[in-house]
C-alpha cells in the first residue's frame, strides 16, 4: 500500500541523508523531547489496543509505560505509533520510534541482519490455527488443501510454509497487510483457517461475528518468543529496556506490587532494596535515577499484575500463565539478579 511504500522510502531516504550519529544516545533524545515514542500494533486486544478514546492498553503497551515511568516517573509520557507487521522494522531502523513493543518474534535473522537488538521476551507464544467448528476438523494434520488467511511480513507465513512442507501438505496462502482485513476475510469465508500466534488467535477471535463458532486446533507449530526491540549501537538504551523488563519479573518473584512498592523500599531483602534503589545506585549505570525500577512498578505493577490485567484468566482473552509463569512456578520467566 501507499503507506508502506512511504515508510520504506522514508526509511531509505533517512539512511541516505542523515548522519550516522542518529543511532546514538536515544536516552538523551527521549529526555529532550519528554516522552518515549513506542511502536505498537494497530490493535491487538490484550497486547496493544486503543479504546474508544484512544487510550492504549495491553501487555506490550505496559512495557512502554514502564520504560517511560523509569525515565520520567510518569507512565503517561509515551506516544504510540501503530505499525503493521510490515512497517515495524523500517520504522524502528529509521528512528521513527524509539522502541518497538509489538508482539514481535525474536528470530536470529531479525536480531542479526536488521541492525536491531531484542531486549528480552515478555510473552512466550507459539503459532496456532483457528477453524470453524462446523468444519469438523480436529487436527492441523487434516488441513491439506486448505486456504489459510494470515498477515504478511510475519514469522507466521514462514512457519506455515515450513509446517505444510514438512508434513507434505498443500495449501493456499492468502496474506493481508492489516490484521483487520485478515479477520474480515476469514469471517467472510475466504479462508478455512486463520493462523497466527496463539495469543493473537484468542485476541482476534473476539472480533469475529460469532466467536463461539470457531475453535483453536491443539497443534502449536512454532516457538514465538515475543519481545521488545531497539536499534543496534546504543547499548545504554538497550540496557534500559532490558532491565526495566527484568525488574518487572523480579518484582513479581519478590512480591513487589504496584500497591506495596513504597513500603517494600524498606524491605529486609537486600535484592529488593537494590532493585528499588534504597541500597546502591544501579540506576546510575543505565543513566537513570536510583529508584528507576520503583517508578516503573508504581506505574504498571509487576509482570504478574501486567499479565493478569491484560491477558489473564479474568480478561476476555482468558489466557492462563502456562509457560509465562515465573521459573519458580514451572514457567520460563526468569529475571537475572540485580546486583
Amino acid at each position: 500500500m501507499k503507506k508502506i511504500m512511504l515508510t520504506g522510502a522514508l526509511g531509505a531516504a533517512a539512511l541516505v541523508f542523515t548522519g550516522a550519529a542518529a543511532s546514538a544516545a536515544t536516552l538523551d533524545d527521549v529526555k529532550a523531547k519528554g516522552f518515549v515514542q513506542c511502536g505498537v500494533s494497530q490493535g491487538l486486544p490484550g497486547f496493544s489496543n486503543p479504546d474508544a478514546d484512544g487510550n492504549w492498553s495491553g501487555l506490550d503497551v505496559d512495557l512502554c509505560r514502564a520504560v517511560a515511568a523509569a525515565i520520567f516517573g510518569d507512565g503517561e509520557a509515551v506516544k504510540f505509533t501503530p505499525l503493521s507487521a510490515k512497517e515495524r522494522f523500517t520504522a524502528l531502523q529509521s528512528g521513527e520510534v524509539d522502541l518497538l513493543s509489538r508482539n514481535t518474534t525474536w528470530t536470529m535473522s531479525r536480531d542479526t541482519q536488521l541492525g536491531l537488538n531484542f531486549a528480552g521476551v515478555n510473552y512466550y507464544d507459539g503459532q496456532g490455527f483457528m477453524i470453524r467448528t462446523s468444519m469438523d476438523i480436529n487436527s492441523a494434520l487434516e488441513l491439506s488443501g486448505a486456504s489459510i488467511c494470515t498477515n504478511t511480513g510475519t514469522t507466521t507465513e514462514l512457519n506455515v510454509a515450513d509446517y505444510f512442507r514438512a508434513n507434505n501438505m498443500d495449501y493456499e496462502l492468502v496474506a493481508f497487510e492489516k490484521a483487520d482485513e485478515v479477520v474480515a476475510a476469514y469471517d467472510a469465508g475466504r479462508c478455512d483457517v486463520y493462523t497466527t500466534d496463539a495469543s493473537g488467535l484468542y485476541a482476534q477471535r473476539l472480533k469475529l461475528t460469532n466467536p463461539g463458532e470457531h475453535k483453536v486446533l491443539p497443534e502449536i507449530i512454532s516457538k514465538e518468543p515475543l519481545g521488545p526491540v531497539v536499534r543496534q549501537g546504543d547499548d545504554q538504551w538497550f540496557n534500559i529496556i532490558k532491565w526495566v523488563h527484568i525488574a518487572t519479573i523480579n518484582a513479581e518473584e519478590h512480591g513487589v506490587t504496584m500497591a506495596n512498592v513504597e513500603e517494600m523500599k524498606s524491605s529486609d531483602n537486600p535484592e529488593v532494596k537494590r532493585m528499588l534503589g534504597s541500597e546502591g545506585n544501579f540506576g546510575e549505570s543505565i543513566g537513570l535515577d536510583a529508584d528507576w525500577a520503583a517508578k516503573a512498578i508504581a506505574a504498571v505493577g509487576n509482570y504478574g499484575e501486567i499479565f493478569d490485567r491484560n491477558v489473564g484468566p479474568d480478561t476476555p482473552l482468558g489466557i492462563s500463565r502456562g509457560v509465562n509463569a515465573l521459573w519458580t512456578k514451572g514457567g520460563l520467566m526468569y529475571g537475572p539478579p540485580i546486583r
Partner: protein
Amino acid sequence: MAVTDVTPNGSGDGAPKVALLNNPEVRGWVFQIILAVLIVYLAFEGWTNMNANLRAAGIASGWGFLGTNAGFAISQSLIEYSQASSTYGRVYIVGLLNTLAVAFVGIILATIIGFIVGVARLSKNWMVSRLATVYVESLRNIPLLLQIFIWYFGVLRLLPQPREGFDFGPLGLLNNRGFFAPKPVWGEGAEFTLYAFIIACVIAWGVGRWARARQMATGQIFPSFLVGLGTIIFLPLIVFFVSGAPLSWDIPKMGGFRPSGGMTLIPEYIAMLIALSTYTASFIAEIVRAGILAVNRGQTEAANALGLRNGPTLRLVIIPQALRIIIPPLTSQYLNLTKNSSLAVAIAYPELTSVFAGTALNQTGQAVEIISLTMLTYLTISLVTSLFMNWYNNRVALVER
C-alpha cells in the same frame, strides 16, 4: 547570435564588448556546470553516507538476497513458483507479472467500459445518458481503496462456500475461493495451430492493406474486416482438426477444502480487476466525451452531406479526430491504473508492492535495495506505456495532406 559577432579587438563597430561574466551564453554554461557538479556531488555524498549508515547500523546490504530462498507461498503465480525452492529474485518476477496481469487486463476493460459510457453520456436517449452520468459521478468520487474493499468483501459475501458453490460442469466451478476454469492442455502437434494462427493474422493484415489501396485507387469497397476475421478464425480451426485436435481439458474438481486442477481466478484478482477498471473507466468516459464534443459539429454535417450514414460518420470521421484529443489524457489514466494496482496489497492480491516491497522486504530487511528496485520497476512500466502511447498518438495525429 549577437555575442558571436564580438570581434576580439572589439572596436566601436558591431556589438559592444561584454565582460565574460555578463556574457549570457558563457554564464548559462557556467551555471549549468556548477549545477551538474553539485548534483553529482550530492548523489555521491548520499551514496557514501548511506553505505556508512547501513554499516554503522549493522543492516545487511547488497543484492545477494535475490538468490536466496524465499520460503513463503504466493496465492497466484503466472510462472512456476514453489515455496520450497524459489528465490527472492523469482518472488520479484512473480509479483511483477501479477502487477502486469491486473494492469494489462484492467487497461483493456477500462478502455472498453470508458468508451461505452463516454458515448452513452452523449446519447440522445435521456435514460441512457442519465445512467452514464450517475456511473461517472459516483465512481470517480468515491476513494478507490474503499471501492476495492467494497468489491472484495462484496464478491466474498456474494459467492457461496466451496461445498455449496456453483458447478457449471465442464465450464468450471465458482465459489468464494475463486473461479476455477478448465485448463487447456495442448498435445503433440499443437504448434501447427499456432503457426496457422500467425499466418492467418499476416494474411488478414495483407488483405486489409490491399483493400485500402484498392479503395483509394478505384473507390471499390472490399469487406476486408469480415474476410480477415474469417481467415483468423477458420484457418487455425481447419489446421487444428487436420492435425488431429491435439487438445484436452484439465477440468477442476471439488477437493476436500477447495477445487483442484484447472486454472484459477482468485477472488482478490477478480475484485481488483473490477475495482480498477470500473474506477478508471469513469475518468476515461469523461475524456472520451470531451474528445467527441471537441470535434466540430460541421464535421458531422459535412459527412452527412457526403452521404455517410451515422455509423460510418462516427467511425470514419468523428472518432479519428477525437482520438487525437483523447490519447494524451488516456495515457495518464493508463499510468494511474497501473500505479493504483499497488493498492492491491490491502486485499491480499500478490502483486509487486505486496509480495516484493512487502513480504520480501520484511523478511530480508533490505529496504534500500528493495524500494529502489520497486520504484525503478514502476518507473520503467510507466515509461514503456508512455512510449507506446506516444507512438500511437503520432500515428493517429492529423496528417496534413
